[in-house]
């Protein structure tokens, strides 16, 4: 199987015409991983045998018939490990399927491979994985972004056709930008969270990470929609998200939020984004400057609300029903205290402490409640801007991929890597990152991501804009030296 099939659209054509079988596709992904994952280390495990068995029975007439898809280690696939890259879930095997997995399979896709991540999706570099370090395929001594760094790396390194990630504050878009692939965070409530191990329940959302925008639309077609198992999934019409992908931006109004173009952005990132905005203009879009005045508070709001929700969600890891349990506890408090000490890594502990503190008696109003109120202001900023523009365009990240170890000792610096992606989660809107150029640093070519955002449940517009831009450029066709196919 040649690298020309390395997108869902291309692979589907080859499968439909009988040129390639689903089993060929599974074997090709496994071979690509064999070739390149020794250096990229994006996969935690890959059960090729069961995927091949699945490939034998798959209905190739379905929209994703025979397409292998890599799954972030935070999404349950029955019978497979689901460890969230944490020692506290070492050896855990999922007893049921996440709704997205049932839906992908109903569309003919084959889950193949578990991808590395920051432990419990807490991080921006995948360095918080307790299992292994994943490298950026463009420069192996640099981070792939996070927390869905494994998913981004295996797509960018040509060892996956597509992947699922999860995005709580940018965990799909930021690694997609840093690795040079497409990453879509759907609107809150668009995709069921059932079977996604919860980090911050009011912010988490599952989404695709792909080689092209059209591929993301195809996956969203399969996984979107109301699910009775997730009461926050919304009963909203699911259109065919590929329908509007016509390459045209005539009549579209794109907003440039001035708070996303500020001092401190890497000059090469800024230049690439400005060039991309000009490209959108030449495709017919009208560009208007807009303001989201509460953007400056987004990181602060996020690190209160996300840690508060995490401290509550992670209380379930108590060493009783599943996961790691400390040996020979002297009493129940010793059992809990040591189980969690031994099972959680430093960043998870840090966030549990912060979240517990902001929820604790005497501090709840000052931190948690106040942050929820500022969240309302951030939501209103977006609501009023979207009365005047169809979508927003800005950088996905302030810098290209940084070196491993560069920010690990300074949590606040690491948190600020998500500065442009966090507000979308707080407001519940959708966002996507597409490749828009390269920065040259220390002799390495490092991908740069362009972020579009659109109002809640308007993924059709978001994908149409992102697709039109993508198709007018060549950036998404560039490949790193570490490439599996």
């Amino acid at each position, binding site marked *: 199987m040649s690298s020309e099939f390395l997108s869902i659209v291309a692979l589907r054509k080859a499968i439909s015409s009988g040129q390639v079988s689903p089993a060929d596709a599974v074997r090709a992904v496994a071979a690509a991983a064999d070739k390149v994952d020794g250096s990229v280390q994006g996969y935690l495990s890959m059960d090729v045998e069961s995927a091949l068995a699945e490939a034998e029975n798959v209905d190739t007439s379905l929209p994703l018939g025979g397409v292998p898809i890599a799954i972030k280690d935070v999404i349950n696939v029955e019978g497979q490990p689901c460890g969230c890259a944490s020692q506290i879930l070492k050896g855990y095997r999922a007893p049921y399927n996440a709704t997205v997995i049932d839906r992908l399979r109903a569309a003919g896709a084959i889950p193949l491979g578990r991808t590395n991540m920051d432990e419990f999706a807490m991080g921006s570099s995948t360095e918080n994985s307790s299992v292994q370090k994943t490298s950026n395929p463009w420069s192996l001594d640099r981070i792939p972004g996070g927390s869905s760094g494994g998913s981004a790396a295996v797509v960018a390194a040509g060892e996956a056709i597509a992947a699922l990630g999860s995005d709580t504050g940018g965990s799909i878009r930021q690694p997609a930008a840093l690795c040079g692939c497409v990453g879509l965070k759907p609107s809150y409530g668009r995709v069921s969270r059932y079977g996604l191990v919860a980090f911050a329940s009011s912010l988490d959302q599952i989404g695709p990470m792909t080689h092209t925008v059209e591929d993301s639309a195809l996956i969203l077609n399969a996984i979107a929609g109301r699910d009775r198992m997730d009461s926050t999934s*919304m009963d909203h019409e699911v259109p065919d998200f590929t329908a509007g992908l016509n390459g045209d931006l005539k009549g579209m109004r794109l907003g440039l939020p001035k708070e996303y173009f500020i*001092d401190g952005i890497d000059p090469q990132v800024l230049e690439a984004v400005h060039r991309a905005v000009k490209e959108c203009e030449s495709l017919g879009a009208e560009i208007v400057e807009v303001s989201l005045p509460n953007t400056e508070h987004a990181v602060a709001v996020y690190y209160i609300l996300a840690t508060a929700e995490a401290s509550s969600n992670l209380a379930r890891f108590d060493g009783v029903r599943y996961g790691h349990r400390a040996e020979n506890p002297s009493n129940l408090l010793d059992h809990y205290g040591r189980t969690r000490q031994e099972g959680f890594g430093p960043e998870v*502990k840090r966030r549990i402490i912060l979240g517990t503190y902001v929820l604790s008696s005497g501090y709840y109003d000052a931190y948690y409640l106040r942050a929820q*109120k500022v969240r*309302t202001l951030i939501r209103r900023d977006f609501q009023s801007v979207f009365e005047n523009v169809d979508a927003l365009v800005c950088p996905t990240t302030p810098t290209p991929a940084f070196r491993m170890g560069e920010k690990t000792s300074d949590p606040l610096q690491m948190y600020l890597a998500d500065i442009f992606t966090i507000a979308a989660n707080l407001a519940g809107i959708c966002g996507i990152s597409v490749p828009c150029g390269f920065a040259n640093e220390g002799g390495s070519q490092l991908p740069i991501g362009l972020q579009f955002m659109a109002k809640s449940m308007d993924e059709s517009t978001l994908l149409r804009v992102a697709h039109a831009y993508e198709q007018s450029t060549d950036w998404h066709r560039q490949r790193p030296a570490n490439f599996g196919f």
Partner: protein
Amino acid sequence: MESIARPVWRWLDFAGGFAEIYPLMSSSHLDVRYTAQLARLDLTDDEIATFQSQLSQVLEYVDQLKQVDVDGIDPSPYSDAEFNVVRLDEIRPSLTHEQAIANAPQKANNLVMVTKVIE
């Protein structure tokens, strides 16, 4: 609010020395040892010292929210969510007994073993 805005963004190319930006703010009453007890999480003395210093920095950073006028603003526990979603109270397929306890760290007689609760 403008005066708060600029220092925040300056963090993008700023590596340390937070006190230089907010010299007068010291919000942190955070007691890591006590909070860890609330979270049922044992920490080493080294972890306590490290988290105390790192999280004090983070708390100073989030103190910017105290400058925001939130009078009369409703909180948003969710961005957009339908509230009071109910479902039919009906029997549906669920995990078998074996599936439910398959991941338990200690088992005996097809039950989950737990640490003694009553002394």
